[in-house]
C-alpha cells in the first residue's frame, strides 16, 4: 500500500497540499496539514486509496519545501 507522509519538521504551512488533496487532507488551526483517520485523529500519514495517487504525486511536486513523501508502508523503526 502507498501512503503520503508529511515531514512536519520541513513543512512551512503554505497549504498547497491540502488544496490539492482536500478534503482528505485538512489543515489545523495553525495552518499545518493533517490527514484525518477513522477515529477523527489528525496524523502525518495518509494511506492512499484507489485513484488518489495522482493527486498525491501532484501535491508532493507542488510542495515548495519537499515535505511530502510517497512511500510504501514500512514497519516503524
Amino acid at each position, binding site marked *: 500500500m502507498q501512503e503520503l507522509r508529511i515531514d*512536519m519538521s520541513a513543512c512551512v504551512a503554505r497549504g498547497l497540499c491540502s488544496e490539492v488533496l482536500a478534503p482528505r487532507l485538512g489543515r489545523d488551526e*495553525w495552518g499545518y496539514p*493533517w490527514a484525518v483517520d477513522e477515529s477523527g485523529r*489528525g*496524523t*502525518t500519514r495518509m494511506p492512499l486509496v484507489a485513484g488518489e495517487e495522482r493527486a498525491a504525486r501532484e501535491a508532493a511536486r507542488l510542495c515548495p519545501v519537499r515535505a511530502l513523501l510517497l512511500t510504501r508502508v514500512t514497519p516503524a*523503526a
Partner: protein
Amino acid sequence: MNRHLEPQQARDESPRLLAAADPSWGAHLAAHGELPPAGGLEALAAAAAAAGLAGRGGAGFPTARKLLSLRGTAPLVIANGSEGDSFSAKDAMLLARAPWLVLEGLRLLAEAVGSRRTVVRAPAEALAGIRAADPGQECSEATGTFIEGEASAVVAAVTGRAALPSFHALPLSQTQPGRPPALVLNVETLAVLALAWRTAARGAPPPSTRLYTVSGDGVGGPLPDGAWGPSALAPGQRWVIEADAGASAAEVLEAAGLDASRLAATGASVLVGGRHGHWLGAEQVAGGAMRVAGSASPRGTGGGMLHVVGAERCPVDLVAELAQVLAEDSAGQCGPCVFGLPALAASVGALARGSGGSPHELEELCQRVAGRGACHHPDGAVGFLRSSLAAFGEEFALHARGSCSALHAHGDRARRGLALTGPVPGPAQGGNREVA
C-alpha cells in the same frame, strides 16, 4: 527493609551492573571476570533475548529484534548516554561507575555487526569515566537538552549535523540519502549486553536487574509523626538504585529506603518515566503496580525514572510547570509541536490557576497535537498530560474553582520543585544506594 531482592540471591544468581567497587579495570575484572570473545550477531541477539533485554533509554524496544534488523548493514554504532530528562541520573552514574561494561557492550556489538566506528555520546561530565578507561574511544559531548537524546538527533549530532530529531521514513538502521545506517543503544542496554554475553557463555542465569532513578518532591521534610522521609528525596536530589528489572514501583521505593506503604497512606503519587511519563496514584503504588493497568503506553518503566510527589506538593502545580518545560523542550521544527505544546501548557496553566479552560478543551488540543511531530516528543507530552488529567481530575476541578487541597494558601507558598531544566548532576550529588 527489602523483601524482594535478597542481597545474596541477587549476588549469587545474576550479575549486577554496579557490582564493581570502583571504575578501575581491576575492580571490573574482579566483579565480572573476562569477557568471552565476541561472536556473531545471532548469538549476541540470543543472549539479549535470554535476558529479556529491552532498550533502557525509555522506549523499551526489544534489543534482540533491533540487533537482528541490522543484518548485513555494518552501521555506525552509538552508545547513548545523553540522558536529557532531569528526572534521570542513572546513565551518568553507570558511565562513572561501570565504564568498562559500556565499552565492552559497544565492542561486542561493533564486532558482531562488522562496524568500524563506535561513538559514546553523553554530557561532558558523564564522559570522564569512559575517557579515563579508554582514551582511544571516540566520544561526542551532549549538552544535556531533553530532545537531543532522541535517536535521530543523536545520529545527527555524531554525523556532524545539528543535534535535532529528523523525519525519517525508514528506520535509522537503513541507509537513507545523506545518512549512514546507524544503531543507537542506551548505555545501560550495552552494559547489560556485556553481562548477558558472559552469562550466556557460562550457562549462568542472565542479568535480571536494571537501574532506576528515584527522586521526590514534598516527601523530604520531617513529618509531624517523625522524620521518616529521608532527606534523600529532598528536591533536586536523585538516587540511583539497582533493583530487579521487573520490580513494582513500591519495591523500587523500598530498595531506595523509603517506606512505600506509608508513602501511599499519606496520598503520595509517583510519576513513572519522567517528562514523558505517567502517574501512579497512591493506591496503585500500594497495589504493586509499575505501570498503569490497561494503559496503552508502550513505555512501561520509561527509563526507570520514579519521581515521588508527596501530598504537600500540589500535583496540579507540578503538572503545569512540567507542561511549560515540555513546551520549551520542543526542538522548534514541527508546527504542531512548536504551536501545540505552548497551547497545551497555556491550557493546563489556566486550569491550574483557575483562570479558564476545561479538561474537555485540553483533550481536544491533545488530539490535534498527538502523533504529528517528526519525533515522539508531542506524543510523550500528550501522554503525560492525559495521565495527569486521569490521575488528578478532582484536583484539577478544585483548581478550576480557585482552590487546592495540597495547601490552602495557594499562591504564596515557596516553590520547591526539582530544577527541571538544569543539567544532570554528577554522581556525587546523587549517590548510589545499592540493595546489597
